[in-house]
């Protein structure tokens, strides 16, 4: 609720600022200034198109398909503390697992399962078209700092691996969309599905690997037939 209010207040302030700004411009801008404004506009547009980190890049990424997980508009944070939208993964094939860093039994095995897939893809030279994503189900304990340590401990290549955290509701939506089940117990640990989900370049689920220590041949076949 507080967050919402804050956002509303920000919205109001920025809205008011915009109103003042445009009005001032309307009253005082000379023809010359107007011309300059036009040039600025064109330059801005070019910048948006070619820029690497401008805020509007995603709008250029094209339409998201009806069956894509990227229809979720949830806001995530990556291991470096930067804001991350799932649709940022568009264009890559994704190997996704939900996990929590303090899990001592299943999650380390799931990570090893993902690494086996990574190694197999490295051997087939197609590794550059893949992203490996771990999404935490434990918003309370898994801060960006904690997951960064987790990444170091597991020696992830962060050009390929991304570890994401988000609020409980965003976690729930991603879990719901991938059919991942989880439940927190009294001690704060989780029971959860052992599930690796594979997404194509559009973010559509093409395959799911259920269980631990599974033979990855089947999953690799699914990934390769999507080439």
């Amino acid at each position, binding site marked *: 609720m507080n967050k919402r209010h804050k956002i*509303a207040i*920000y919205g*109001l302030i920025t809205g008011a600022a915009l109103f003042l700004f445009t009005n001032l411009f309307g009253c005082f801008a000379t023809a010359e200034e107007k011309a300059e404004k036009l040039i600025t506009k064109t330059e801005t547009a070019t910048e948006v198109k070619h*820029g690497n980190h401008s*805020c509007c890049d995603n709008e250029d990424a094209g339409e998201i398909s009806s069956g894509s997980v990227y*229809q979720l508009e949830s806001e995530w944070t990556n291991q470096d503390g930067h804001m991350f939208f799932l649709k940022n993964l568009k264009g890559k094939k994704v190997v996704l697992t939900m996990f929590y860093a303090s899990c001592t039994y299943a999650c380390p095995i799931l990570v090893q399962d993902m690494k086996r897939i990574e190694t197999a893809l490295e051997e087939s030279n197609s590794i550059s078209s893949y992203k490996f994503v771990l999404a935490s189900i434990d918003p309370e304990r898994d801060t960006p700092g904690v997951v960064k340590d987790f990444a170091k401990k597991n020696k992830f290549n962060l050009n390929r691996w991304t570890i994401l955290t988000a609020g409980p509701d965003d976690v729930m939506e991603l879990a719901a969309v991938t059919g991942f*089940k989880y439940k927190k117990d009294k001690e704060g640990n989780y*029971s*959860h599905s052992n599930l690796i989900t594979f997404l194509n370049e559009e973010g559509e689920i093409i395959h799911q690997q259920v269980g631990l220590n599974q033979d990855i041949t089947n999953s690799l076949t699914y990934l390769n037939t999507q080439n």
Partner: protein
Amino acid sequence: MKRLTNTICSIVLYSGLFLNANPQGTNNSKMILISTGFYESLFNKGEEQKVEKFYLDVYPVTNKEFLEFVKANPKWRKTNIKKIFADESYLANWKSDLELGEKANRESPVTYVSWFAAKAFAEWIGKRLPTVAEWEYVASASKDKKYAVNDKEVIKKILDWYSSISAKEIPPVGSTEKNYWGVYDMHGLIWEWTYDFNTSLVTGESRGDGDLERNIFCGSGSASAGNAENYPAFMRYGFRSSLKANYTTHNLGFRCAKNFK
């Protein structure tokens, strides 16, 4: 230049958020305050879960109410719905995007809705979906008792309904029993979505235990049923665990809840 771009972008972003900052739905449906209590989790023997007091809708959400929602939110209309949010039978008994038609009574509960659609409705109206614990806590009451899950007659009545569910038109809300809390239709009208429906870590054969399950779910090997008599609850958990978030069917609807504060 970059700064200007950023400013414009953040203005667009903030004003977008601003528009969504307050619930826009009309909030007519009646709610009742459910007082704090304990709910015996079905799968963890002896473990009582505290349910904090909260508000619950007296009736499930109706077709009429859901129509208002889709009028205001084009994204959730039949022809606009994204596959990831609802399967192909979404609002299947409605005539068109904005017409209910003959098969969907205005006062009957809206069904053929997915978890995502139910959740979006709840947020639009400034509420939320009840949790499994909240729902089961209220559903364990009979007409005059707060906790009646061991009452043989109550069990029989619920099971009779479960075995007689048919595809015929669903009666208006309020057609079945009013329970101890003053809440209608917890049993006998429709199945209902819960917020954390995907916390039921059970397979179809969950009353038995097995290595298979231990392999699929981390941690579930330790779960053991708390009350084997509560067969209706087993059925509900089984049903929930078979659901997917975009799943819709003729007798699955929802009602909303709200925090007490």
